């Protein structure tokens, strides 16, 4: 097993499309890292760069201590599970799973032992002689997993492996993949657009949007302290409510104007979130809070959403030019289900809207 690290990694396709920019991330040895984001956010590109299936146009990717830019996939010691499984249709399940070992000239007894072990873990023992075409979707998915785990690779890469399964099976396989990953203790990068998968499976979650890393943290932290509006609205089910408000300096502290009411922010809240100050009304704040980035309360990484999504839950539709951006931004973080006690501000805001 090994760690994987991205240092300033970027990807520009031949036609000039930028898929990923300035991507910095360390995946620890044995960690289950989930890349999540809407489609086209660059998560699959990032994964494929680790696999060596996509040229790295900027920066460096390391697996363990080794820089792997330019290294052929077969020399990277990785295994990958594809979205469409990419099984070899003309080979039996056994040969599919054994293929990589055979290519690497593993002794036949060893191949047999490992394939049977993988089949046992995945419940495929009775299917070994069948061809992929004769299997159900779930079984094919398992074969794809089997093909990865027999290898004992340094890193597992999974590209939306569950997206072709029906809902029930998906839940089941979700648990199973998480279990297998724990059992093998393998460093895993898992790409998904499904935030439920991201929240339930990963040790840590990396949220991407338009080729920019938004936040990396444990699922709980991402949920509790989203770095910006985008993360806040993307993560969590049901969605977080977002409400517009205006933050201003008033008296000896900050005052939040929301829904025609003034709420004084408790000093300890302001102290806990030093970024907040910058967003209080005034010239300085306006500059800070330009169109780029809205580091929210307790930002883990100040990489902003380029254009904030519209407020949800019946919030005012699009008064973009009406108030100073800066003032609006900070207020936009919205209400949450009122069960988290350490966020009194939001709860109050949430109620204030109604």
């Amino acid at each position, binding site marked *: 097993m090994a760690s994987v690290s991205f240092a300033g990694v970027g990807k520009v396709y*031949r036609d000039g499309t930028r898929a990923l920019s300035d991507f910095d991330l360390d995946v620890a040895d044995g960690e289950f890292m989930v890349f999540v984001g809407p489609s086209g956010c660059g998560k699959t590109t990032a994964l494929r760069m680790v*696999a*060596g*299936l996509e040229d790295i146009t900027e920066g460096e990717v390391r697996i363990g201590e080794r820089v792997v830019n330019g290294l*052929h*996939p*077969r020399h990277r010691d*990785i*295994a*990958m599970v*594809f*979205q*469409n*499984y*990419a*099984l*070899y*249709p*003309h080979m039996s399940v056994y040969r599919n799973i054994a*293929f*990589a070992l055979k*290519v*690497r000239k593993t002794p036949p007894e060893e191949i047999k032992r490992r394939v049977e072990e993988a089949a046992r873990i995945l419940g495929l023992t009775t299917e070994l002689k069948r061809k992929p075409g004769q299997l159900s979707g779930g079984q094919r998915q398992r074969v794809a997993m089997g*093909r990865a785990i027999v*290898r004992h690779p340094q890193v597992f890469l999974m590209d939306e492996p569950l997206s072709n399964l029906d809902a029930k099976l998906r839940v089941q396989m979700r648990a199973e993949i998480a279990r297998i990953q724990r059992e093998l203790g393998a460093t895993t990068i898992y790409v998904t657009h499904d935030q439920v998968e991201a929240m339930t499976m990963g040790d840590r979650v990396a949220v991407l949007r338009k080729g920019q890393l938004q936040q990396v943290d444990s699922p709980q932290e991402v949920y509790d302290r989203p770095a910006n509006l985008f993360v806040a609205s993307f993560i969590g089910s049901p969605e977080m409510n977002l409400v517009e408000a205006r933050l201003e300096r008033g008296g000896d502290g900050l005052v939040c104007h929301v829904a025609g009411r003034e709420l004084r922010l408790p000093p300890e809240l302001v102290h806990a979130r030093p970024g907040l100050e910058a967003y209080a009304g005034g010239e300085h704040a306006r500059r800070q809070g330009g169109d780029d980035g809205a580091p929210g309360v307790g930002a883990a990484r100040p990489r902003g959403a380029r254009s904030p999504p519209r407020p949800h839950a019946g919030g005012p539709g699009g008064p973009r030019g009406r108030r100073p951006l800066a003032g609006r931004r900070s207020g936009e973080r919205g209400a949450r289900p009122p069960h988290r006690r350490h966020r009194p501000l939001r709860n109050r805001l949430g109620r204030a809207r109604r």
Partner: protein
Amino acid sequence: MTAHRFGRVLSYIVLIVIGLVGLLPFLYLLLLSTKSRLDILEVPPSLDFDWATIKANYAEVIHEDGYFTFVKNSVIVTGVSTLIALVLGVPAGYAFSRLRFRGSDTWGSTILSFRFMPPVAVAIPIYLMIRYVGLLDGYPGLILPYIAFTLPLVVWIMIGFFDEIPREIDEAAMVDGLTRPFVLLKVLLPLARPGILVAATFGVIFIWNEFLVGLYVINSQDHYTIPIAASSLLTVESPIDWNIAAATGIFTVIPILLFSIVVQRYIVRGITAGAVR
């Protein structure tokens, strides 16, 4: 009668007519090859068969005209040309389908246009070139131009077949430890087999029937391919023996017919491959 049934009957009638149009000339040829020289002009031909005449006709083709030499020539030329065209064309098709290189898009889409050129348009330049390199009247002199004719077709067909195979299979194989050439050899060739057979069939049929280039390049009877040998029947001084010509025609068709029957199921699968998936 319901409309559905009516449509069905109608479609059968149309199919039968089409089948007759396709088959009748061939059946007529078969019938002519069993006649004596005198009975040949009888219309409609009688269905009286005389075993001795049949034997005489076919024996003449086989023994006096050296039919087996021509078959041998045709098989060698067709086989070698097709094989080389496949060996070159299949990897080329793979490259056009998967890799990006300068001109890969343009060449991939225009490559078939080389095939639009009818042999008659290029037969004379080809003859001059073959003469220049001293390959007249021999197998290589035929094989080279035939490869040139077949290759674009093979490449074009194979591009289509490789495009049908998901790229992820290549990628999985590379992650599993293969380099590109071995991905093609070990994983994709078995998957592309129907395509290879389709390409081979079109190549074989074209080369087997090709006449003009062969006529220019080959001079001695030892090297005649079947179409040239068959046509030589028509140019000798003696009156044309239509019954012998018909028997030759039958012999010309038999090898290609056998080949087609063997690969038929792959051809059908191959032709519909794009449609069904």
